[in-house]
């Protein structure tokens, strides 16, 4: 009962803050895990008419483009075994997804830990590790490459489609979207620290680094609405039990040791300068050369870019629920369980 009272007090304080601000707030949650948590816990109904939640481009599966999938399928056809995180299986390529390729006999295996994958890889297997994700997962790939070097393995390569969070956010805030506040991804902040998000302050938009549990999100909304009320643009940290000011310095050193910035194509946002990470030239022997034709990477009917930039709600997309569903995803936001269209498809309607 005490918890209930405390929660009700916080909910009422958030609503009071918004009433004082005097308008419905547009808040972007950058990370897909936040999107799911917001919808799954009913925040969209709890703060209906108070907060318009917009899903950002921080779901690594959502922003992985079809060209990358096509490359992996081509490599599988050349008899490589592809190791991938499970939720990449559904991302549509031009002709098929990895799941469909697997059903047709391609050697595609699900991995949980790139390090364990390298540790337990059969010696006679020509393997490619699909390296996908933001800064959260990059250290794991760095560690697995270290393991490859230690064991002097010659049968493992990395297909890098790694992303950075700062560049797409800058593009989004500069060119695409007008929001009152940002919920920043706690997982990435674990690595980059509060310092890694200081650039957001330049845009003069209040922001908060949040955890993923419902109470984390509630407290982050309390903090964020207070910042909006006070016109305070300092990046707030409401995930202190995990996120330090300087981040995880060991993990950051690993990233810097093996990786360097490169341009990257984001499904829905296009090519972003410095938006990706590739292996440094001294490790190029462990990197797969990927061939992209950026011109062809767009689905004219798919409005993911508009969804990711808050111009459109998922249900306003002409493909939503008609031809674009979680089983037949046509675009970025329906692909992953953490995509905004996918979350809306599952939890978005309410009484």
């Amino acid at each position, binding site marked *: 009962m005490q918890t209930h009272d405390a929660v009700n007090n916080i909910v009422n304080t958030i609503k009071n803050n918004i009433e004082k601000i005097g308008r419905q707030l547009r808040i972007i949650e950058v990370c897909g895990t936040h999107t799911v948590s917001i919808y799954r816990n009913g925040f969209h109904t709890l703060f209906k008419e108070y907060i318009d939640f917009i899903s950002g481009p921080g779901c690594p599966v959502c922003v992985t483009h079809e060209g990358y999938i096509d490359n992996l399928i081509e490599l599988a056809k050349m008899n490589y075994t592809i190791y991938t995180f499970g*939720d990449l299986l559904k991302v549509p390529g031009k002709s098929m997804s990895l799941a469909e390729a697997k059903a047709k006999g391609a050697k595609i295996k699900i991995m949980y830990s790139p390090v364990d994958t390298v540790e337990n890889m059969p010696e006679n297997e020509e393997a490619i590790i699909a390296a996908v994700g933001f800064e959260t997962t990059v250290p794991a790939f760095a560690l697995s490459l270290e393991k490859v070097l230690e064991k002097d393995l010659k049968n493992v390569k990395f297909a890098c489609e790694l992303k950075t969070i700062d560049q797409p956010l800058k593009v989004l805030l500069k060119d695409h979207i007008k929001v009152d506040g940002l919920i920043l991804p706690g997982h990435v902040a674990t690595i980059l620290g509060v310092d890694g998000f200081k650039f957001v302050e330049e845009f003069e938009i209040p922001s908060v680094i949040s955890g993923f549990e419902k109470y984390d999100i509630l407290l982050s909304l309390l903090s964020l609405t207070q910042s909006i009320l006070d016109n305070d643009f300092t990046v707030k940290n409401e995930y202190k039990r995990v996120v330090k000011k300087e981040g995880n310095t060991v993990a950051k050193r690993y990233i810097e040791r093996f990786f360097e910035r490169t341009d990257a194509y984001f499904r829905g946002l296009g090519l972003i300068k410095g938006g990706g990470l590739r292996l440094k030239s001294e490790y190029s022997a462990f990197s797969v050369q990927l061939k992209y034709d950026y011109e062809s990477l767009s689905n004219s009917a798919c409005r993911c870019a508009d969804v990711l930039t808050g111009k459109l709600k998922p249900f306003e997309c002409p493909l939503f629920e008609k031809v674009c569903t979680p089983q037949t995803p046509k675009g970025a936001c329906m692909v992953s369980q953490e995509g905004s269209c996918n979350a809306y498809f599952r939890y978005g309607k309410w009484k």
Partner: protein
Amino acid sequence: MMRTIRKEHGNGGKQTYELIDDLFKPIFGSEILKSGDDSTVFSLNGMKVGISTDSFVVKPYFFKGGDIGKLSVCGTVNDLAVAGLEPKYITISFIIEEGFSMDDLEKITRSIRKYADLAKVEVVAGDTKVVEKGAADGIFINTTGLGVARDTQKMPSISRIKGNQVVIVSGDIGRHGACIYSHNEDLGFKDRIESDCGLLLDVISELMQEVDVAYMKDLTRGGLATALNEIVQKSGFDIKVEEEKIPVADEVKALCDILGLDSYYLACEGRFVAIVNGDEKEKAIEILRKYNGFACEIGTVEESREKRVYLSTTFGGTRILDMLYYEMLPRIC
């Protein structure tokens, strides 16, 4: 484009129902089949009898809390039990891949015998097929069960569901699915989560003696969410459940958090929901708790008829709890 069967067609969720409704039912055309519950109850020479069939393809064959043999008896017997039937006979059919361990087959067969004895059902027919290496994955088992009505005056039926009745769950949910995931994914959870695989005969027998149960459904593939959705589709009434009340063990929650799974969709193999009138709920819960301390009221049947399952979240938000509509896959971060 060639239509093909995908894994989701067998997960007990939306695609499974679409396959049954769009392909199987129109072709078979049986009026009895169209009633479409896990057991079919019908009159035969003046007797109310019921029949149920199920196939078991679980891997690993042996898991914490059970094995494919135990599962093949419990699954079919429980389907009969929730329909208000007393199971009498069961058939067992094996499809075995060549090279399968004879010792494992003996263990599985002994387990079938043990649980058939416990369920007081007699194994009356069977079949064995052996296929070449690669044509099946170890062992598949099909069981078909026959039961007779416990009490023809108090048969649970979807047509007896009405507004304001109470939805009760017989124990904590998602254990079997979590157990199988933990075995398959080898994440160090292997011996932490015990499957809920078990017989529901005693608890249902006592419940039906003491309470007039409107409807029961066991929670198998697709879990609690899918079972509730099936109930709203067939009854026409909405159901509203409260997140706070749905019992999930800590270790199941932990596995779900790590793998990005949703406990509401995880399979159970020894749990059911019962729908009873409000004035009988206390008695029903008291009986269920003798068998599982987690049994509790989780929600109500609403007067509204949108065929929806609503979930009230801890903070007072509401969202739709839909059917399982794709394979749950582990996530990146």
